[in-house]
């Protein structure tokens, strides 16, 4: 296993109730990567992210984050989960939400200090939400909330940003803006984003991987390309690099 890999997945198998969700996943994420993982709806992609984060333990295979097991290494990862999982009416404002990301550098029983507040301020500036820092989270639009959660991931000083379906609740006008934000961030950290929406991510990412873990149950109607034919043999497969995927995918 190479040291320069941020994340290394080796021969990962995950089953839920005997049904295979991930089969023989091998993946290396390096510094500077901007990887899009696409695949049909209904699992698999999120499970893969959770395996990387040590939230799901694979039945077989090894995960290492910068040479450490995920439970330790995940402190280097900024995670933005699927939007719909949080309680919109939760009594919390933007500032406190982002401050939560500083826990790793503060620790138990201690109060957040000036440095933590500075980090929050910077992150909110980066995502363009500083002017609204005292607004309640639930009052924001889906796209704005997504920005706040990215800010929360950023204040953990991550080497890698993991985004799960980041544009699911973002209207198309805001999506461009959102991808431009990622485009700006990719210079300072590796980014992996997972989506079922091929067209949107293909324009910005450098690499695309396809994930289809349920070959036995799902046809892959959503993405019937020659690219996916190779996916049938192996659930994760790098398809192309550079600007090629953009053009290839735009055809359909």
């Amino acid at each position: 296993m190479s040291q320069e890999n941020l994340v290394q997945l080796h021969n990962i198998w995950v089953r839920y109730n005997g049904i295979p969700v991930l089969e023989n996943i091998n993946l290396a994420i390096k510094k500077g990567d901007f990887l899009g993982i696409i695949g049909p709806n209904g699992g698999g992609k999120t499970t893969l992210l959770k395996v990387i984060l040590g939230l799901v333990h694979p039945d077989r295979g090894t995960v290492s984050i910068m040479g450490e097991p995920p439970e330790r290494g995940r402190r280097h990862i900024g995670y933005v989960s699927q939007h719909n999982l949080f309680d919109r009416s939760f009594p919390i404002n933007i500032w406190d939400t982002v401050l939560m990301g500083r826990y790793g550098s503060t620790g138990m029983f201690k109060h957040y200090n000036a440095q933590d507040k500075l980090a929050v301020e910077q992150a909110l500036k980066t995502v363009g939400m500083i002017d609204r820092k005292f607004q309640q989270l639930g009052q924001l639009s889906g796209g704005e909330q997504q920005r706040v959660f990215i800010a929360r991931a950023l204040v953990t000083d991550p080497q890698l940003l993991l985004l799960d379906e980041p544009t699911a609740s973002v209207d198309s006008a805001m999506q461009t803006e959102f991808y431009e934000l990622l485009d700006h961030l990719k210079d300072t950290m590796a980014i992996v984003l997972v989506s079922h929406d091929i067209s949107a991510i293909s324009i910005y990412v450098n690499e695309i991987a396809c994930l289809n873990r349920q070959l036995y149950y799902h046809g892959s109607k959503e993405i019937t390309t020659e690219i996916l034919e190779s996916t049938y043999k192996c659930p994760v497969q790098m398809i192309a690099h550079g600007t090629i995927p953009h053009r290839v995918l735009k055809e359909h």
Partner: protein
Amino acid sequence: MFEALQFEFMRNAIVAGLLAAIACGVVGVYVTVKKIVFASDGIAHFSFGGVGLGYLIGINPIWVAMAFTLASAIGMGFIIRRTKLPEDTVIGVLLAMGMALGIIFIGLAPGYAPDLFSYLFGNILTVPISDLILMFVLDGIILILVLALYKEFLTLCFDEEFGAITGVPVEKLYFLLLCMIALTVVVMIRVVGIILVIALLTIPATLARQFTHNLRTMMLLATAFGIIFTFGGIWLSYILDLASGATIVLLSGIVLLGSFGFSKLRSKT
């Protein structure tokens, strides 16, 4: 009302109401935002097993009830977290078993259980000094925990998954939260009783939530509402000669429903 204060039982009732309002104001906020109302009710009902055992073995039922609430909090947390059994089913089963245990124990105990009813529905006018001291200590423990672990509990309630990634010990905190609920139940038993505990754990916090988006402010407001409700309830029960616990609960419930109605009306115009 003021002439009533010359009675010791009335002064005790005021102190008991105050202590109960603090515990339910602070912990009730967690119970409602974390949506563990039913689990809290399960812990409350399970305490009846302890009350029954207290009668049977001749120990102050409140102390045995505390052992039962803590045991049920840990047991329930364990089953919810470590098994795949459906959470609400587990709570329902434990809740009923705790009540059944209580009845069996009381049946086995010799003689008649005189103030059994006050454990079930509360009687703030009969709280002995020894129980007041226990309530005071438990309030202190709860406040210290919340002050020390405020940011940890906030993360636990808002986003456990993210908390785990950043190193918050979410599992341990979850158990600790259930144990705080267990202690709160003990504080409340004398005031509103096992069956009505859940009202004071939910109503003041829910009412407070309508006025703020900050958890800390919400706790302060919920405590203030709790004080108003318990004192108002004591006063109403005194002048109308009604059961105190039930009066407190009904007063709180009516105010909450009224405020829902009012905000609905206001949003229409």
